[in-house]
C-alpha cells in the first residue's frame, strides 16, 4: 500500500530531512573508513580541521567550492527541465579549450580584466557546444541524454588528451599541458578578503575572482529559473511535457536552450583552475568536479540557495580530504567519490526513506505540526 507522503513543517522538509540524509551518508562513509583500518572519528576531525581550521584552509575550501557551484548549477538547471546532464565533466573539460585558446591569444596583449570576460565567453560557448549534440539528439531523436552525455565525457577526455599531448603542447616540453599563461590571463587572488577578517592566508592559496563569479552566477540562475519567462517555460517542461505542449512551449527549443545554459555553466568551471590557479591548461584539470556537481545539485534541491552551501560542504571534503591523505595515506581522494555517491543515493534516490520515522517523531510530540487534530491522534 502506498504511504501518502506525510506532511511535515517546512523547516523539517527542507532542513532536517536533507541533514539526516547527509548524516547517514557520512555514517556509511565512516564504515568504509573502518574497513580500511582507520578511525572514522579521528578522520572526521582531521577533515574539518583541514578545511576550516586555518585561513589558508578556508581559502582552499572556497576555491574547490567554486568549481562545484558552477557544476552544481549546471546540473540543477537541467534538472528543472527534467533532464539529467551527467556531461558536466566533459563540458567543463572542453571548455578548457575555449578558455585556453582565448588566454593563449590575448594574455600578452590585454590586461586580465579584458581577457576575463572574453574567456568567460569562450568557456560558456565551448561548454554549451559540447552539450548541443546530446541535447539535439534527445529533442529530435529521443536518444537518452544520460547515455549520450556519458559518452561525450569519454570523447571529451580523448579529445583533450590528444590536444594536450599534441597541438597545444609547447614544442620540446614534456608535460601534457599548454605553456604557462602570463599576467594578462591571471585572475587576482582573493586571499586578502579573508585576511580582512583576521585570518592568515598563504599567498599561494588558490581562491580567486572566479569564486565571486560563481556567486554571481548562482544569483543569475535564480533569476533565470524563477523570474523569467524562459525559466517558467523550463519548469513547465520539467514538470509536464504535455502541459508544456498545451501552453505553446516548443519542446525541442526548450530542451536545447536548457542544455546550452547547463553546458555553459559547467564550462565556466574551467576558468577557476586555468585562470585562477594553475595558469595553464593541463590534463584532467576538472578531476571529477562535473560529477560532484550532481551530488551538489541533489543536496541543494536544485536551488541556488541550497547549491552554494552544498558546494562549500564538498569543498570542505576536498580540502579536508587532502589533509587527510597526508595523515592517513590509505584514504585518498577516491573516498570523496564514495561520499559523493552516497550523497547522491540518499539525497536523490532515497530522499524519502527517513520521512515516516521523522513524521512519527513529530506526530508524537506535536500532532498539529503534521496536520493531525490531537483528538484523532489519540483515539484512532
Amino acid at each position: 500500500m502506498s504511504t501518502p507522503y506525510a506532511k511535515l513543517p517546512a523547516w523539517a522538509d527542507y532542513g532536517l530531512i536533507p541533514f539526516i540524509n547527509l548524516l547517514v551518508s557520512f555514517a556509511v562513509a565512516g564504515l568504509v573508513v573502518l574497513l580500511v583500518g582507520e578511525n572514522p572519528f579521528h578522520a572526521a576531525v582531521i577533515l574539518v580541521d583541514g578545511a576550516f581550521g586555518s585561513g589558508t584552509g578556508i581559502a582552499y575550501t572556497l576555491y574547490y567550492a567554486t568549481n562545484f557551484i558552477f557544476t552544481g548549477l549546471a546540473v540543477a538547471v537541467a534538472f528543472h527541465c527534467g533532464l539529467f546532464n551527467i556531461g558536466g565533466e566533459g563540458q567543463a573539460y572542453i571548455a578548457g579549450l575555449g578558455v585556453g585558446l582565448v588566454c593563449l591569444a590575448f594574455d600578452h596583449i590585454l590586461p586580465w580584466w579584458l581577457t576575463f570576460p572574453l574567456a568567460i565567453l569562450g568557456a560558456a560557448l565551448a561548454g554549451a557546444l559540447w552539450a548541443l549534440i546530446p541535447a539535439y539528439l534527445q529533442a529530435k531523436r529521443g536518444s537518452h541524454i544520460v547515455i549520450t552525455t556519458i559518452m561525450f565525457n569519454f570523447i571529451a577526455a580523448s579529445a583533450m588528451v590528444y590536444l594536450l599531448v599534441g597541438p597545444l603542447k609547447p614544442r620540446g616540453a614534456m608535460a601534457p599541458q599548454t605553456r604557462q599563461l602570463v599576467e594578462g590571463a591571471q585572475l587576482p587572488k582573493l586571499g586578502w578578503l579573508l585576511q580582512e577578517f583576521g585570518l592568515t592566508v598563504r599567498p599561494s592559496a588558490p581562491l580567486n575572482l572566479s569564486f565571486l563569479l560563481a556567486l554571481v552566477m548562482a544569483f543569475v540562475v535564480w533569476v533565470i529559473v524563477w523570474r523569467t519567462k524562459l525559466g517558467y517555460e523550463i519548469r513547465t517542461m520539467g514538470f509536464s511535457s504535455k502541459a508544456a505542449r498545451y501552453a505553446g512551449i516548443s519542446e525541442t527549443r526548450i530542451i536545447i536552450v536548457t542544455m546550452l545554459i547547463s553546458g555553459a555553466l559547467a564550462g565556466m568551471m574551467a576558468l577557476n583552475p586555468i585562470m585562477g590557479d594553475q595558469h595553464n591548461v593541463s590534463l584532467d584539470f576538472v578531476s571529477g568536479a562535473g560529477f560532484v556537481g550532481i551530488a551538489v545539485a541533489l543536496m541543494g534541491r536544485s536551488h541556488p540557495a541550497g547549491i552554494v552551501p552544498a558546494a562549500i560542504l564538498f569543498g570542505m571534503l576536498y580540502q579536508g580530504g587532502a589533509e587527510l591523505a597526508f595523515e592517513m595515506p590509505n584514504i585518498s581522494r577516491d573516498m570523496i567519490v564514495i561520499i559523493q555517491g552516497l550523497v547522491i543515493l540518499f539525497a536523490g534516490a532515497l530522499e524519502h526513506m527517513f520521512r515516516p520515522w521523522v513524521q512519527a517523531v513529530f506526530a508524537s510530540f506535536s500532532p498539529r505540526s503534521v496536520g493531525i487534530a490531537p483528538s484523532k491522534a489519540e483515539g484512532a
Partner: protein
Amino acid sequence: MEFFEALINILNSTIRVSVPLLLACLAGLYSERAGIFDIGLEGKMLAGAFAGAAAAAVYGSAWVGLGAAVLVSVALALVHGFASITHRGNQIVSGVAINFIAAGSTIILGQAWFNQGGRTPSLTADGRFGAIDLPFADALQDVPVIGQIYSGLLSGHTLLAYVAFLAVPFTWWVLFRTRFGLRMRAVGENPAAVDTAGISVAWLRYRAVICTGVLTGLAGCYMALSQNAGFVKDMTAGRGYIALAALIFAKWKPVPAMFACLLFGFLDALSIRLQGTPLPIVGKVPVQFMQALPYILTVILLAGFIGKAIPPRAGGVPYVKER
C-alpha cells in the same frame, strides 16, 4: 589463406571482447523488461571485477573469485532494487550513485588491502579460468575452413565466454516459455495488471534485479579473471553504458542483443588491430581517436535508431497503487 587467418583472428578477438558486453547487456535486459531502468551496470561490473580479483588472489581459486564477484554485484543490485522498488526513488539517480560508490570503493579498498596503487595482485593460473578446448579441437586444427573455424574461433575460450553465449538462448527461453518470464514481462508493461492478479510486483522486480546482479557479477569476473589477470582501476571504461546502448539497439530482445554486442566487439577489435596502421586517404589515425571510437559509435547508434524503439511501457516508473 592469410586473409582468412586474419579474419579468424579478428573474429576471435571479437568474441573475447563481446563477452563482458553480452553479459552486461543480458543483465540489463532482465531489469528493464521488468520495468527497472538500470544505468548502474557499469558500477556493478566494476565492483564484481574487483571482488572477483581480490578473492581469487587471496584464496588462489577462480571459483572463489566467481562467487565473490556474483555476491558483491548482487548486493549492489539489491541496493538499487531497494531504492527503486521499495522506496520508489529515481532510478537513474540511484544507478549513478551506485556507479560512484563502486568506483571509489574499489580504488580505496584495493589500495588499502593490496597496496599496489589500486590494482589487485596479478593472478596465477589457479586464480583464473583457463581456456577450454572443445573436443577434437587439436585434431581438426589443420582441416581447411571448418577446422580453422572450429579450433581457432569456437574452441579455446574460457568458461564464462561459453556461459555468456549459452545465456542468450537460455534468456530467450526464460522470457518466453516460463511463468516467471511471462510475469516479468507483464510487470514491465503494466504492473497494475500483475498486482490485481495477486502477484507481488515488488518480489517479481527484486528477482529480476537479482538476475541482473548475477550476470553483471559474471561480466566483472570475466574481465578480471579471464580477459585480464587481475583488477585495474576503472577497468570497465564505460562498457556498462555501451551494453545499455546495445540493449536499446536490440529493442530489449535476447538474440538481437547478442548481435549488437558482437557488432560492438567487432568494431572494437578492428580498431585495436588497425591502431598504428595508416588508413587510405586519412593516413595515420591518432590513438586517442581509436580509443574514443566505441563511444562515438554508441552515440551514432543511439541517434540513428532509438527514436523508434519502444521500451517496456512501465520502464523507469516506480509502481504506486492508485488511490
